[in-house]
């Protein structure tokens, strides 16, 4: 495979009449990433993935997979790429195995010989003879993964792979994604489940109303939010005044007995010394951990529009 990144999307726009489903989206997925594409339902995740797979034509902008554009290179652009959008779909009147045989024949390249192997991976071998029409949702999702794996992909595009699965099914699906990633497959998965993304992904993009609010590493995103601290002191009002006067502390606020502020780590060290010198006893000085969920809700519900964009720039 070429040295081009698995996914490079630039300025992707998809307009349906008045509605802009995807608005100037840039995405870069590097080899080895497990990339989480996060957004509320209807944010434009699936539409973006469809454009990446060449199923729909962007109104403007371009998408390249390993340097190849599906609009220009046709099916060849999908060499080494597999996945599904909006849940995998199969012919209900054919068996699971027949469905895979069909797709393997479409692929060529010895894909047929890998059917048994992938059926084992997704644990569907004993049901492969049965018609897909009788499969549960979870079995179809797993068959979708199997159908992707017979292509021996270097890049997997998965659209909400755990949606609709029961807790055990979700766990199995996540284990599978983790395992595939550990084998060197780059994964781009869309999700609205934050815990899932936090658990699986090293890089994320957050999309709302068709626009990317953040793209970068998950750690950096979490770090932008972890510069908030809270302080509990014996004399809250005196402590607040001290904090206000202390260099390096911002957004100081008194919330009940608790003082909150933003600061870098060295400013925290200086603050603890200052508190001691002022003979001001404190009971706790703790960093406020922000979960991805809080960040996500902040960003996607629009309350923190400006900080979110600022965060993107900080990280970049």
């Amino acid at each position: 495979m070429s040295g081009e990144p698995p996914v490079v999307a630039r300025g992707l726009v998809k307009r349906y009449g008045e509605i802009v489903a995807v608005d100037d989206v840039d995405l870069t997925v590097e080899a080895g990433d497990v990339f989480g594409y996060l957004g509320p339902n209807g944010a434009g995740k699936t539409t973006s993935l469809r454009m990446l797979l060449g199923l729909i034509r962007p109104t403007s902008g371009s998408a390249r997979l390993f340097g190849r554009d599906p609009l220009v290179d046709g099916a060849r652009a999908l060499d080494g790429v597999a996945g599904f959008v909006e849940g995998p779909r199969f012919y209900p009147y054919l068996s699971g195995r027949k469905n895979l045989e069909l797709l393997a024949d479409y692929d060529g390249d010895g894909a047929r010989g890998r059917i048994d192997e992938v059926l084992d991976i997704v644990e569907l071998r004993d049901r492969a003879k049965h018609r897909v029409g009788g499969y549960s949702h979870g079995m179809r999702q797993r068959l979708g993964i199997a159908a992707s794996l017979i292509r021996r992909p270097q890049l997997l595009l998965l659209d909400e792979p755990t949606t609709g699965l029961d807790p055990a099914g979700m766990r199995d699906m996540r284990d599978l994604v983790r395992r595939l990633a550990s084998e060197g497959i780059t994964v781009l998965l869309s999700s609205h489940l934050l815990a899932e993304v936090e658990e699986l992904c090293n890089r994320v993009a957050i999309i709302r109303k068709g626009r990317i609010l953040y793209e970068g590493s998950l750690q950096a995103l979490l770090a932008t939010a972890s510069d908030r601290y809270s302080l509990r002191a014996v004399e809250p009002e005196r402590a607040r005044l001290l904090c206000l006067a202390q260099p390096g502390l911002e957004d100081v606020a008194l919330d009940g007995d608790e003082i909150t502020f933003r600061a870098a780590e060295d400013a925290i060290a200086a603050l603890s010394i200052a508190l001691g010198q002022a003979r001001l006893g404190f009971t706790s000085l703790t960093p406020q951990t922000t979960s991805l969920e809080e960040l996500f809700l902040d960003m996607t519900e629009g309350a923190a529009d400006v900080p979110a964009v600022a965060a993107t720039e900080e990280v970049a």
Partner: protein
Amino acid sequence: MSGVARVYKWELAKLVAQKRTYLGIGAAILVPIAFVVSLVVQGGTGPTDVPLGRTLTATGLATPFVVLFFLSIWGLPLITALVAGDIVASETNNGTLKTILTRSRDRGEVFTGKVLACLTYMIVAVLAMAVVGVVAGSIAWGLHPLTSLSGTSVPVGHSLVLLGETLGIYIVALAGVAAFGIMLSTVTRNSAASVVGTLMFALLMQLLGVLPGTEAIRPYLLGTQFDAWHGFLRTPADWAPVVRALWVCAIYLAAPLTAAYLVFLRRDVAGE
């Protein structure tokens, strides 16, 4: 195996696995049987106002021609529409189109494979009707020389050749119906609308041909070509309607298929 051949093979496999395929082929088989059985039971001499109708009970070889005459009006167009109108639209609605379009086959290959499979099904239906017609008719009335439309006697062997030519030129005309169905199926993405619309198209083409004042366009209507095979049954054979059917049908085949192809190559494949 080429890309198109792979797609074609699996399109056939899908047709074999679907009930509606048997509905069409089954009808093509049952109609000649029912036709022969009802004539034998009633003891009639056959319809007098259709080609070869007068000599229907003289030889089993007349049966496929007479049944073709009746089925060509709406029976075979409906059988064709059942699959042609469905072949792209059903995959759009089931979401399987995106499944196969994210594999290693180009859209052009997928489309071509579908068209070939649809035409194959149509040919099988016509041949099944003819073979069953010959067999059922021969059981009822024996295998004797055919009397041509010009009144001459045609030996059994040559009658079978005429039947082959007849089916050939009829299949070319019916392919025009199939092409229209595939276009509707691709453009409307609605299976039921495409099946009904295709049948309407076939009926309209024939209706236009019998309305007064349409004489000028009549030779160029698809419905007119459904009867081109009558030319083979004259002695000597009248090639004029056959030759015209060939080029007129080429247009009815090429225009909708080209349109459908271009739409299929560019269209967005998204959930409905």
